[in-house]
């Protein structure tokens, strides 16, 4: 018997997108395969690495631990949706400026996590930044520049507001 398909509608980065997916389709795979948005990366599918993190109604969640059908009708922001047209977001600019990335594999997850973190807490302490990004793994940078980038992003956001 073929697997039953479910018709779902997601608002991804402000655009209404429809897809037909089996119940077991992970949100990460739905974004990448069904919707062609390959900015969301997939590392472990255990919830451990954090590179698949996207924003669900503005709140960061693991897209590898969410079924697409569960979030039918809701708003998703992926790394592709962070920039304002051609202009990168403050968080993206800060990561570029501070060398907060090398290979870039972990970067989409960090950018989404940090975007939400600074929205909730525009001037985080050292401790709060550490706690905020503690669920994201990076194999390249050694983290120090990522931490700097978060503080720099907070600065840029304060300057521009």
């Amino acid at each position, binding site marked *: 018997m073929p697997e*039953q398909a479910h018709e779902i509608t997601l608002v991804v980065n402000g655009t209404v997108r429809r897809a037909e997916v089996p119940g077991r389709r*992970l949100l990460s795979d739905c974004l990448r395969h069904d919707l062609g948005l390959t900015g969301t990366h997939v590392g472990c599918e255990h*919830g451990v690495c954090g590179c698949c993190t996207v924003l669900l109604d503005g709140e960061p969640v693991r897209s590898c631990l969410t079924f697409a059908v569960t979030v039918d009708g809701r708003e998703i922001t992926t790394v592709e949706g962070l920039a304002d047209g051609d202009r990168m977001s403050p968080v993206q600019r800060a990561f570029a400026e501070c060398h907060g990335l090398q290979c870039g594999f972990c970067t989409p997850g960090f950018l989404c996590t940090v975007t939400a973190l600074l929205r909730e807490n525009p001037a985080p302490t050292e401790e709060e930044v550490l706690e*905020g990004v*503690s*669920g994201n793994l990076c194999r390249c940078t050694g983290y120090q520049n990522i931490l700097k980038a978060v503080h720099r992003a907070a600065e840029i956001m304060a300057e521009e507001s």
Partner: protein
Amino acid sequence: MKPPPFDYHAPRSLGEALDVLAEAGEEGKVLAGGQSLIPLLNMRLAAPAHLVDINRLPGLAAVEAAPDGVRIGALARHAQVERSEPAAVAQPLLRQALRLVAHPVIRNRGTVVGSLVHADPAAELPAVLALLGGSVRLARRGGTRDVPAGEFFTGPLESAAAPGELAVSALFPALPPRSGTAFREVARRHGDYALAGVAALVGLDEDLRVTTARVACVSAGPVPAVADVAGACGHRPPASADWAGAAEAVRARAEPEDDIHATAAYRRHLIGVLAERALRDAAREALNA
């Protein structure tokens, strides 16, 4: 890997959910936050024929603080409970423990009730429910029952929730007067499951002498066992109570196991150290209460 196929159900009412679960029986699994179940599906360690997604059920996300305690609905996420001020006032151990559960992003989806039903011996919340003597409310087609924590955790990853049953809420009893709580644990990396952890509750009488001293341990046996160490502490003011003796009693009773993360002997050592720290912290909180 990817999850195996299943029939997906998204009931819109509690009645409908209970009907689907009753019909699915042994073949059915509830999906709440998915933060434990989806990894198991991705690793193909679970293959339910029917998945019943409760995320659309109305009225299950409440966190209600009342004089008897905090009642937490099945769809209340860890993060939501952690933020709740009334919950923190009624029972501070909830927030103390939730800050140690995984990472903030996982806590945005994972549910408190899901964590109880999942019954991982390394998880914080089952130990909290056991320590406080709370209960879980289970609904099935045609009935509801409240199961006390002491009977709810039946083995590693096994709870009293039977096929066809849905845990609709859990009650975490309120902190009694002149009492304090603390949660101490050691994990290899921040946000990991703890190698060992101890939740403690200390209560004082009107002369500010220790009358209650209980702990529940994490990663120290198949189910969260509660140890009453009031006798070992002595009926004395916190400053002169025998916390080291109490911790030794806890250590002696723990039944940790070896695994790739730590030896049983190391875990047992940690439990002794953490028990003393948690009891002292809880006593300090009680004096400040």
